[in-house]
């Protein structure tokens, strides 16, 4: 049993979307403190939209979203910011500021929110960069690095304030298998290095699910198709869960649609010219 920091994330009857367009409705889930939870689902199912709400970047249309026992959107300005400051975020492509070096990117929250001396900030930055294997790259700019390195640098920035909650948006997307495995290992290292840290990973990478997740929130068809421990997910006989885990297309998604013969003939005629 890992240390319980108390920083769990609870979604109660949550509905999220853009404008009048509802993306997810009636989502109920508990992402437990001190565990690695994974939000999974097909492309476009609302995973990243849900994450933006957890980050407080958008207000939900209905329901409550509690972080560490506090209803995030019921908090007033300063209290809201206080809770959000306890979250570290790794965006999909790192979202590093292009005009700053990696060192300055990682140092940014420390410089803005603390009065620590420059030398201390530098030590912390190098330590965090070392944790993600980038200690020698502090003076590089983001555009001088590969996608995987940018993601790792984004992770270093996310953990620089030792947040009790770490949120990662598609940390392995676009990475080769070796770098994807390295990113998974880094997230496991985070849990080992920061006991009690609640880690939430948005992904559709089944290998990551197998490698790191304890809890799962699966989104499908505009709501939560499953929420619970990963072992229960594997044992589930829900058709969508099974098709997702077994990487099978649903029957209704298999199309036998073909072009009208005359259109196909016209296309073929052009292609043969």
């Amino acid at each position, binding site marked *: 049993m890992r240390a319980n920091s108390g920083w769990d994330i609870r979604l109660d009857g949550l509905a999220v979307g853009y404008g009048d367009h509802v993306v997810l409705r009636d989502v109920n889930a508990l992402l437990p403190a001190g565990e690695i939870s994974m939000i999974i689902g097909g492309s476009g199912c609302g995973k990243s939209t849900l994450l*933006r709400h957890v*980050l*407080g*970047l958008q207000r939900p249309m209905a329901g409550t979203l509690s972080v560490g026992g506090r209803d995030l959107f019921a908090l007033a300005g300063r209290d809201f*910011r206080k809770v*959000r*400051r306890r*979250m570290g*975020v790794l*965006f*999909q*492509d790192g*979202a*590093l*500021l*292009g*005009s700053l070096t990696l060192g300055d990117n990682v140092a*940014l*929250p420390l*410089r*803005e*929110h603390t009065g620590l001396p420059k030398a201390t900030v530098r030590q912390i930055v190098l330590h965090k960069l070392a944790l993600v294997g980038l200690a020698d790259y502090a003076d590089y700019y983001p555009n001088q690095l590969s996608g995987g390195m940018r993601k790792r640098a984004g992770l270093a*920035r996310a953990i620089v304030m030792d947040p009790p909650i770490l949120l990662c948006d598609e940390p392995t997307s676009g990475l080769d298998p070796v770098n994807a495995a390295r990113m998974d290992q880094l997230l496991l290292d985070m849990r080992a290095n920061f006991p009690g840290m609640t880690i939430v990973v948005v992904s559709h990478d089944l290998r990551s699910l197998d490698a790191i997740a304890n809890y799962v929130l699966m989104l499908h068809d505009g709501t939560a198709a499953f929420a619970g421990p990963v072992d229960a997910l594997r044992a589930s006989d829900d058709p969508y869960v099974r098709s997702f885990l077994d990487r099978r297309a649903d029957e209704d998604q298999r199309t036998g649609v073909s072009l009208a013969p005359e259109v196909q003939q016209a296309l073929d005629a052009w292609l043969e010219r």
Partner: protein
Amino acid sequence: MSTGPGILAPVTALGAATLRLLGEMGAMFLFLADGLRLIFASPKQIPKILNQVFVIGSKSLFVILLIGVFTGMVLGLQGYYTLVKFGSEGLLGAAVALSLIRELGPVLTAIMVTGRAGSSMAAEIGVMRITDQIDALDVMDINPMAYLVAPRIAASLISFPLLTAVFDVVGILGGYVTGVTLLGINEGVYFYRIQSSVEMADITGGFMKSLLFAVIVATVSCYQGYFTHMRRDGVGPEGVSNSTTSAVVLSCVFVLVADYALTSFLL
């Protein structure tokens, strides 16, 4: 009584466009007010402002020198051949200096800095928006308005009058080159006419214009970049491209409209 939609459509469209424009102007004004307030948010703003003074001011200096000297030379040339018809070529210094200090200095500086720095502000902030960098600042509890917009407004307020002063001085020297060196006007007369005709009100009026233009260019450019993701005419890189174009076009239009309004007020 029923009126066909065909009759009302143009009026409805005009009304909707007017409301949209007014809404946009109001949003831009609130954006400016927030930006101005956040200049004084913390002493940590000072290095950011100085960095932007370098980006907006120092990096625009060469183009201002270049445009300033050639504007002065053209003014000297045109002014000489106009004044000589009336036997008043001795007034060339006054004509060049007053044109530059009252009008051309602030306006051309604003337009050049719009092209050089305003477009870069819109593009940089726009790219930051579409690559989640602004959201990243937000979730790090770093106010993006304080981090990105306020220093640019403050730096523009510092840089524009200084660049305008440089433009005026090199423009007057450009007029000197054509009027005195090439066309043979007496050197003493050229500078005497400047001294006797330029009043303090002309100089302060020019600087007031440059301050107003600084606010316009910085606000419009930052606003266009900041709300790139809300554009209806394009998303992603196309949105950034359109934001940059809008920033330059709107800044130039607003500068010229404000110039007319302020000139009417000052005269």
